[in-house]
């Protein structure tokens, strides 16, 4: 009975996902055929005239992947630190309060994060960003980008906001897996004369690694798809190609679609955006599948 139900709903979800994918593909095909440039290798985006479509995913993909990756690089160590602190060091009562606060972060609507990034964090980060650009500009990621650093609407700002947004999910998953480290493992290490940190290194981290990585992948999946916050934060089109710097701006796939949705005045133009959406769909799907695969292949024996 339950089996049937589970199989049925599982099958339904798979069918639904496939249907969405096929829908996107069908909508995008005419536009892709009308495209005058290569969709995968161009970064141009002019879709106003159905008879002269020029659109490529490259620049959007760069901003999407760069913001998400930057967010992940920032959030992963912080989440690990918080999860270790909460499960291994903090007294129980404190840990509970702290964990609750982190979970509250997950309940903040993204539009609020967007406003914060736009009005507060973006301007506040300008001095840091300028310092990095002036002093470490030789490093490609800190070199001049395609938008003004002073404007704050950069991958740099967006990535930091995204990092805060994905912190709760990574922390929660990591904390949960760390808590389940078998007690006999921990005692085994203690009995060998391991300090608290050595216990963590010999038992908690090896046991929790797969969960941590898959939690991070889920966070990455979220970051890739985040729309509203980035729509507010990132500066609108500069028209210039990105410099592969954290101080590039423009838009991610999702924020681009949100930004231009009002201008979908014909099927062919809309199809270009749908093609972009399809790329995002595949990207997040792969990342999430990877996360699941890591979890099941490492813990589900």
């Amino acid at each position, binding site marked *: 009975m339950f089996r049937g139900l589970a199989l049925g709903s599982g099958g339904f979800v798979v069918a639904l996902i496939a249907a969405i994918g096929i829908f996107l593909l069908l909508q995008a095909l005419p536009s892709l055929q009308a495209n005058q440039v290569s969709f995968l290798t161009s970064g141009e985006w002019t879709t106003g005239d159905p008879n002269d479509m020029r659109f490529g995913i490259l620049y959007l993909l760069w901003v999407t992947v760069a913001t998400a990756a930057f967010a992940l690089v920032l959030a992963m160590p912080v989440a690990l630190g918080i999860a270790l602190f909460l499960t291994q060091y903090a007294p129980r009562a404190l840990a509970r309060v702290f964990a609750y606060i982190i979970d509250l972060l997950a309940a903040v609507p993204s539009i609020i994060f967007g406003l914060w990034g736009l009005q507060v964090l973006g301007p506040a980060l300008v001095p840091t960003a300028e310092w990095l650009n002036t002093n470490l500009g030789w490093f490609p990621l800190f070199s001049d980008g395609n938008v003004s650093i002073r404007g704050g609407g950069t991958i740099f700002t967006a990535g930091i906001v995204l990092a805060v947004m994905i912190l709760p999910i990574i922390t929660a998953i990591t904390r949960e897996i760390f808590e389940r480290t078998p007690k006999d493992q921990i*005692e085994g290490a203690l009995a060998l004369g391991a300090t608290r940190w050595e216990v963590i290194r010999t038992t908690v981290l090896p046991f929790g690694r797969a969960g941590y990585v898959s939690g991070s992948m889920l966070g990455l999946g979220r970051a890739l798809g985040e729309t509203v916050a980035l729509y507010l934060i990132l500066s609108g089109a500069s028209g210039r190609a990105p410099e592969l710097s954290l101080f590039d701006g423009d838009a991610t796939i999702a924020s681009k679609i949100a930004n231009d949705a009002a201008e979908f005045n014909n099927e062919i133009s809309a199809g270009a955006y749908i093609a972009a959406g399809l790329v995002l769909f595949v990207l997040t799907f792969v990342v999430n599948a990877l996360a699941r695969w890591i979890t099941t292949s490492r813990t589900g024996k």
Partner: protein
Amino acid sequence: MAKRIDVKDLNIYYGKFHAVENVTLSVPPRSVTAFIGPSGCGKSTVLRSLNRMHEVIPGARVDGSVLLDGADIYGAGVDPVEVRRTIGMVFQRPNPFPTMSIRDNVVAGLRLAGTKNRQQLDEVCERSLRGANLWEEVKDRLNKPGGGLSGGQQQRLCIARAIAVQPDVLLMDEPCSALDPISTLAIEDLITELKQDFTIVIVTHNMQQAARVSDQTAFFNLHGVGQPGRLVEIDETSRIFSNPSQRATEDYISGRFG
């Protein structure tokens, strides 16, 4: 190496619960002492207080003293981590580190103590595995994970891991209770060999085992639910099993032995 233990007026608590009352006993070096008694009488609790494993449980504490060759392991300024380095422990359920190879499991304690020399680690690995009667069985797969061994082999791996750091004392909490009879015999033989180098304290619910491996036996008992456990008597094993001085001991042994 092997050191003697003197426990004086030991009282052990879990928060408000008084688990064990007024235990006084001595364990001579290079001998095997068995703890027997009904479930819940505090055998594990006493054993765990001998290397300060007890205090990792929140709220747990002890009163009294445990002297290792005269030095109080609960003395001011004594680091419990150091205590556990010199007093090793083997648990009821074999608990090798599952992600580590057999070799890394054996030398884990040495690594923690800072030994990096590869040759030295290899020597200790072989010596400890031989000491645990496991070398012949695993010498060709030292780089395979320890989790792939049988239960009895895993337990001997844990013994190898414990003796690799050359502890002064080896504590064992029902080390055979999860094992089949053949593995149990292998471990009992091993215990008899190990006592030439180590002071051993073993908790067992199997009285034949206590009779077979130990030199002296301590009988613990409970006087009622919610009451602390007590040490009823400790004496030479042959005396405890043939002619104990306490009635309670005799009842317990004849009730289970006959």
